[in-house]
């Protein structure tokens, strides 16, 4: 299997050496993939386990691989239009909850951009059409999607959050009922903040949420998180 990967990579390097270098080293990625193997299979004969197999992941909409029981959150991300590209996979592997708040993938994330680039290069080998992938995402590697720790450390004012929250409650129900629109009550503050910044930075795709989060300051997002975590 490893040698097969090498041959494929060689072909790619010849076809488009610059982009292939940006994506990282698939052999190093194969080593990193050992962290993922407990749940995910990749390569010939791969099947679903605790997590879905990852053949052909590039270019696929989230949560559409038949036969795997995805979390509601992952299904919603797919419905909102999340497509697995070098950029979105990079962000997801860096911090899974930035893109999918209640994902069942309990993985703390790969913080080193080079590790992620290598891992993505390895995943890419088993994609449907590897040659076409990097051209669509030339800026994919090295981008740091994770939030500045200073933003996560902000202490929100729940009273301001209560006022700001009135705008959320036109759609999201205050008693936590989810009906076509997800519940946002009692989330861990960090998850809430990470999710809102992912909308603000347009990593998450929902147009209403991009618009609503887009005009909130870091302090306002912290205030909302501080309010909603305690909403009974």
């Amino acid at each position, binding site marked *: 299997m490893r040698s097969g990967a090498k041959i494929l990579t060689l072909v790619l390097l010849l076809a488009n050496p610059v982009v292939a270098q940006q994506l990282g080293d698939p052999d190093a990625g194969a080593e990193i993939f050992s962290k993922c193997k407990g749940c995910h299979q990749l390569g010939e004969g791969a099947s679903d386990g605790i997590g879905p197999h990852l053949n052909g992941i590039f270019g696929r909409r989230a949560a559409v691989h038949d036969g795997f029981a995805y979390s509601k959150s992952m299904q919603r991300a797919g419905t909102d239009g999340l497509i697995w590209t070098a950029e979105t996979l990079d962000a997801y592997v860096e911090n899974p909850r930035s893109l999918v708040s209640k994902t069942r993938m309990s993985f703390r994330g790969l913080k080193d951009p080079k590790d992620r680039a290598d891992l993505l290069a390895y995943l890419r080998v088993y994609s449907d059409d590897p040659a076409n992938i990097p051209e669509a995402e030339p800026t994919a590697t090295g981008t740091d999607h994770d939030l500045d720790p200073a933003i996560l450390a902000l202490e929100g004012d729940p009273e301001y959050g209560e006022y*700001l929250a009135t705008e959320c409650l036109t*759609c999201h*129900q*205050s008693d936590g009922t989810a009906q*076509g629109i997800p519940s946002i009550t009692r989330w861990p503050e960090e998850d809430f903040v990470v999710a809102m910044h992912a909308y603000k930075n347009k990593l998450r795709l929902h*147009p209403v949420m991009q*618009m609503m989060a887009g*005009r909130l300051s870091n302090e306002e997002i912290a205030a909302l998180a501080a309010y909603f975590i305690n909403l009974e």
Partner: protein
Amino acid sequence: MKFNRRTFLGTGVAAAAAVSAPAVLADGHGKPRVVVIGGGAGGATVARYIAKDSEGAIAVTLVEPTRTYFSCFFSNLYLGGFKEIDDIGHTYGTLAAKYGINVVHDWAVDVDRDARTVSLAGGGSLSYDKLILSPGIDFVEGSVEGWSIEAQNAMPHAYKAGSQTELLKAQIMAMPEGGTFAMVAPPNPYRCPPGPYERVSMVAHLLKTNNPTAKIIIADPKPKFSKMGLFQEGWGDHYAGMVDWIGEEFGGGNVSVDPAAMTVTIDGEETKVGACNVIPAMKAGRIADMAGVSDGNWVPVNAVDMSSKADADVHVLGDSAAQGDMPKSGFAANSQAKVCANAVRGALTGSKVFPAKFSNTCWSLIGTDNGVKVGATYEATPEKIAKVDGFISQTGEDSTTRKATYEESEGWYAGITADMFG
């Protein structure tokens, strides 16, 4: 400084009594009083938020003539057969029982701004420190030649939901095979910009099932309308050959109706119709005139707190307000209500007043599982409520997206009605 609402109120109400409430308390009537006229998306929301957040410090009275409120939003889905009439009916019991709001089912017929009283049709009057008007719309008399409120039984407007909506649906169902449904669309500005065109979609859906050779004509005084590209794409996809939109340049504004003969004449051409929906030109609910705060058809307001430009103690929400860039919609009224509640509470009890933020999203259903939306955020400027950012659904979206948009609209309906009625 960090505090939660309870500790803030615990110390804050007493402090507020020393800071800003004296102006009110000095009048010698104890608790400050807010009277809200109109129990829709603006009025029910503002009453609920003031009562809830003041925790008994403000006496709130809500004047609403109907016992059951039928929302205009989603009433088109009833016409299309996607909702039952009871699905869009809401009552005021929770606002009274859980939030302590004095719900008065009566018509407000006059406002004396000097005496700060509201007169009720059933006799008696209500005193206020702050009056909030959210009366929705009334119609401009004579705006459609041949139509008056006396003719609304033959040609319903169905633009205040309830019996009119049920009547219109019954008339559409009773249309002769291959008959014509006509709509006279309103001029700008009016309640719910995409509403007439969502209605056309829903009527088309109903007819496609029950009367597939029927036709729909729309006489429209406007050259274009909200979500026009999306609706026209949808009409082509779902109801090809059924819908004939006659805009301004084809004489759509030159229209008269004869309710007795059931004819509609558009730019000189008379058509016999099986059912006709006349949506006249609109103006602020009449109580705004009685209160003397309107200027022309609408009530100019200050964006920062929705107070009337004529009287700082009279606030106006929703369809009746001339506020700037927001459309007249239930979502907008609900959004304005929360800004207003925050400001009114601050003025009466000294609670903290935060900067105004507004938003709106309007979902429309074009056909089964084919929902679209348009939305924007807004801020208060000294001149008006000004648009900040916005988005609209795209033509050619895939069916997964459109289905999710419809499901989201159902979630929104549950959310906003819970936000209004508790």
